[in-house]
């Protein structure tokens, strides 16, 4: 292969200049002539029956143009990515505090807010269902017609009982992971209006404009072509803007008033209303032989999906798929349940079920290595999956498996090789404090399915245009959430068209001007859109050989269909392609105060060939920060279905003081044969292993196994005191 000119390098992001100048217009910045401000009346209770809604006082507020309720939804009053079980506006029942009951549109935001307070809703308050185990009982009141179990799964490979009988060590633990908020810095926002051609247009913040278009059209009873959705740029998403947020509400106001409208959620409203990372309980029993071979993994996984389905089913499927990590286990038994409750509402979030499972299995791996007195990395390496092996759910791994390469690379890294030195170092502390300082190094390894998996339509269509002045335009409907994908697209287009990067432009996420490139999720865009770009470039070059470039230039379209596994175990289950990663973390614990500091993290990531090196590192560093948040800070708290922490004073995010200055990202470039230039994706695997690596480092530091996240200073203190007793 000839040397690559732009792929694998460190170009400036295409959007960098507009962003540092403050010129990029985000959804929350849009302003339209004569626009109305829209505010939502949300439920006053986590669970209640609506008896009546009286909007007369609200409608009388000066400046209010309309107050809309369920009867004003002209189409199907329901949405949801997979199952449409969520009302656009509730008419008979509310199931969580974020449920929308009415919309107010007014000339000013102040008027809209005043009117919201004057909408009178009478409720018959119902007992909230807050415990997933109780919700599963046959006599529990049903939140949905099909009962409270949204989805369940059972998979078996071999016979775990036989495996446990042969095991020299058996470790049993229960894990509990919290609900986590995406906390993208820009809350959900957008504007709506009728464009010149009469299409109801919504410019917003979603992660898949074509699906948003379908959901809006269905709720409004409009033909698809009468609805246009755009969402090229937004201030972060991480999966939290995959489901509908403001889009249908905006469209509804413009539909009824024929006027432009704008919505920006407050932070409190954002946290209360959008999907979250599923809180979960995970019971694990694992066994290994004396010689250090994994023999059995048994687990029971219960995820609390909250009030509505969204992607709760597929998230559980991935939790089950990744329940045994990147390891070869002869005997596996997994039971999974995704259960409706009145605890908010959960869905997609970076890692998508793998995040939860990885916390549990990587803790188990560490405990087993300890019990066997084996080096934790060597123990992982000895059990790692290879191509051709049968995965936990008993299907064959048919593509290259980079797990071992990342483990070996981690073993060669400075942090792990010289961990003794790092652990002894007290040079930052005074002599009197030093005895109370404990340090530990921990590792974790993981795999992450790429793409939507088998059974779900997963394709990317792109358009490539070559203009007479030699410029290339890529049109793709995925969104730039911050990850840098548009820059990677431009690099690939420049490479395969043989033009300089400056000659490439990317137009994104508009149902009118860009073809359907699928979701901006599942670590899939670089791989999927990249492949489509390569296909289109081939066609374009052939056209250029055949004919002259007219004034319009030449445009071609191509669609890439993601290859999938040849077995189907469930929706999105399993995957054919995976990314892999191994993380090493150094933590320091002050046993007097309980304070935990993450001092350094090394990330060894196999996302295939790296296309945009700066973007790759950026994803990794941001993933480390989120992994630290999940391990040590973040938890959405409830009191009987009522949110307790809905802004950044009480929902605590890692700051620059909490994330180490020392993050080392090492790409382990196992080139994927089906990937564009050998690329896969990295945006999830970069985060998932961080949390268990920290838990394992804590164990190494103070000899305590934490099984409940987040681990706070008070938890450390309590554990240290208990050990002294």
């Amino acid at each position: 292969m000839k040397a690559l000119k732009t792929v694998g390098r460190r170009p400036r992001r295409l959007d960098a200049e507009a962003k540092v100048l403050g010129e990029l217009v985000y959804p929350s910045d849009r302003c339209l002539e004569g626009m109305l401000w829209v505010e939502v009346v949300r439920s006053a209770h986590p669970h209640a029956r609506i008896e009546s809604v009286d909007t007369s006082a609200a409608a009388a507020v000066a400046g209010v143009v309309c107050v809309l309720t369920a009867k004003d939804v002209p189409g199907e009053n329901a949405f949801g990515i997979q199952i449409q079980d969520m009302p656009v506006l509730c008419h008979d029942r509310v199931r969580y505090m974020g449920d929308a009951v009415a919309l107010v549109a007014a000339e000013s935001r102040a008027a809209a807010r005043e009117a919201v307070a004057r909408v009178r809703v009478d409720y018959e308050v119902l007992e909230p269902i807050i415990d997933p185990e109780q919700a599963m009982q046959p006599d529990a009141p049903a939140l949905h017609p099909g009962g409270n179990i949204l989805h369940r799964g059972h998979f078996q490979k071999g016979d775990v009982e036989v495996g446990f009988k042969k095991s020299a060590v058996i470790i049993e633990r229960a894990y509990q992971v919290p609900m986590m908020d995406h906390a993208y810095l820009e809350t959900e926002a957008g504007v709506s209006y009728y464009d010149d051609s009469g299409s109801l247009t919504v410019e917003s913040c979603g992660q898949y404009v074509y699906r948003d278009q379908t959901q809006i059209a269905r709720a409004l009873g409009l033909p698809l072509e009468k609805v246009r959705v755009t969402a090229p740029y937004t201030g972060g998403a991480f999966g939290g803007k995959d489901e509908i947020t403001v889009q249908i509400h905006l469209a509804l106001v413009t539909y009824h008033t024929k006027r432009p409208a704008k919505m920006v959620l407050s932070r409190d409203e954002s946290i209360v209303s959008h999907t979250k990372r599923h809180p979960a309980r995970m019971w694990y029993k694992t066994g290994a032989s004396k010689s250090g071979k994994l023999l059995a993994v048994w687990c029971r996984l219960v995820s609390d999906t909250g009030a509505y389905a969204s992607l709760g089913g597929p998230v559980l499927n991935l939790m089950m798929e990744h329940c045994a990590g990147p390891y070869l286990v002869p005997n596996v038994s997994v039971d999974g349940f995704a259960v409706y409750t009145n605890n908010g509402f959960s869905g997609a979030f970076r890692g998508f079920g793998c995040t939860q499972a990885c916390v549990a299995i990587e803790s188990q791996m560490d405990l087993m290595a300890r019990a066997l007195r084996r080096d934790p990395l060597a123990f992982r390496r000895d059990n790692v999956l290879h191509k051709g092996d049968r995965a936990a759910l008993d299907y064959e791994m048919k593509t290259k498996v980079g797990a071992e390469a990342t483990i070996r690379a981690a073993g060669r890294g400075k942090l792990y090789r010289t961990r003794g030195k790092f652990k002894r170092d007290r040079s930052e502390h005074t002599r009197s404090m030093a005895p109370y300082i404990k340090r530990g190094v921990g590792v974790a390894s993981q795999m992450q399915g790429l793409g939507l998996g088998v059974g779900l339509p997963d394709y990317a269509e792109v358009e490539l245009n070559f203009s007479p002045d030699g410029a290339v335009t890529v049109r793709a409907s995925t969104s730039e959430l911050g990850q840098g994908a548009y820059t990677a697209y431009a690099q690939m287009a420049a490479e395969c068209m043989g033009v300089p990067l400056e000659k490439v432009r990317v137009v994104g996420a508009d149902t009118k001007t860009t073809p359907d490139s699928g979701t901006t999720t599942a670590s899939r865009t670089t791989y999927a859109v990249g492949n489509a770009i390569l296909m289109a470039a081939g066609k374009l070059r052939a056209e250029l050989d055949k004919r002259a470039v007219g004034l319009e230039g030449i445009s071609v379209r191509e669609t890439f269909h993601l290859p999938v596994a040849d077995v189907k175990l469930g929706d999105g289950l399993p995957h054919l392609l995976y990314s892999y990663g191994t993380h090493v973390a150094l933590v320091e614990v002050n046993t007097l105060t309980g304070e935990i500091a993450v001092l350094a993290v090394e990330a060894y990531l196999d996302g295939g060939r790296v296309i945009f090196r700066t973007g790759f590192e950026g994803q990794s560093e941001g993933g480390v920060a989120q992994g630290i948040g999940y391990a040590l800070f973040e938890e959405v708290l409830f009191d009987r279905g009522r949110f307790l922490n809905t802004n950044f004073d009480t929902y605590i995010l890692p700051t620059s003081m909490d994330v180490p200055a020392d993050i080392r990202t090492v790409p382990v470039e196992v080139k994927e044969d089906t990937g564009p230039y050998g690329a896969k994706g990295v945006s999830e695997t970069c985060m998932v292993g961080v949390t268990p690596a920290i838990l394992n480092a804590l164990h190494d530091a103070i000899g305590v196994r934490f099984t409940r996240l987040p681990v706070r200073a008070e938890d450390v203190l309590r554990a240290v005191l208990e050990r002294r007793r």
Partner: protein
Amino acid sequence: MKITVRLQINGAEARFEVDSTERLVDTLREKAGLTGTKVGCGIGECGACSVLLDGKVVSACLVLTAQVDGAKVATVEGLGKAGELSDLQGAFVREGAIQCGYCTPGMLMAAEAILARYRRPTTEQIRKGISGNLCRCTGYAKIVSAIRKTAGRRAIQRSGR
């Protein structure tokens, strides 16, 4: 009752009629059309709305416009122009200190305040200096290095003078 407030924004004089409860961030975004300054929390916790007020970094979501009559306000829009980025902006671009970019304007203003305070800030001083500015995307590492490199370049320029 409306109150008349005069501000000097990025060097230009401006006059606003505001309610007593109007926040500076809304005056900037909605009346002055300067949407570079963002809102992430509205309660002084995220720093997305950071601007310089008479040279000091403040959260514009916590400042009432009526309180700061006569003040000098510096926002991201005053730092540089297309094709003429400031040294700090250039460093953010080169280092890859930007992802979604929503924290970037506030981060740049906080960084200017650090650079005004320390001639050669240490990594720790930089980390502390931006600890009021949340970034959910980058993990801060590249932001810290962009600020450190700018400080280095400015120090060389000063000594060359």
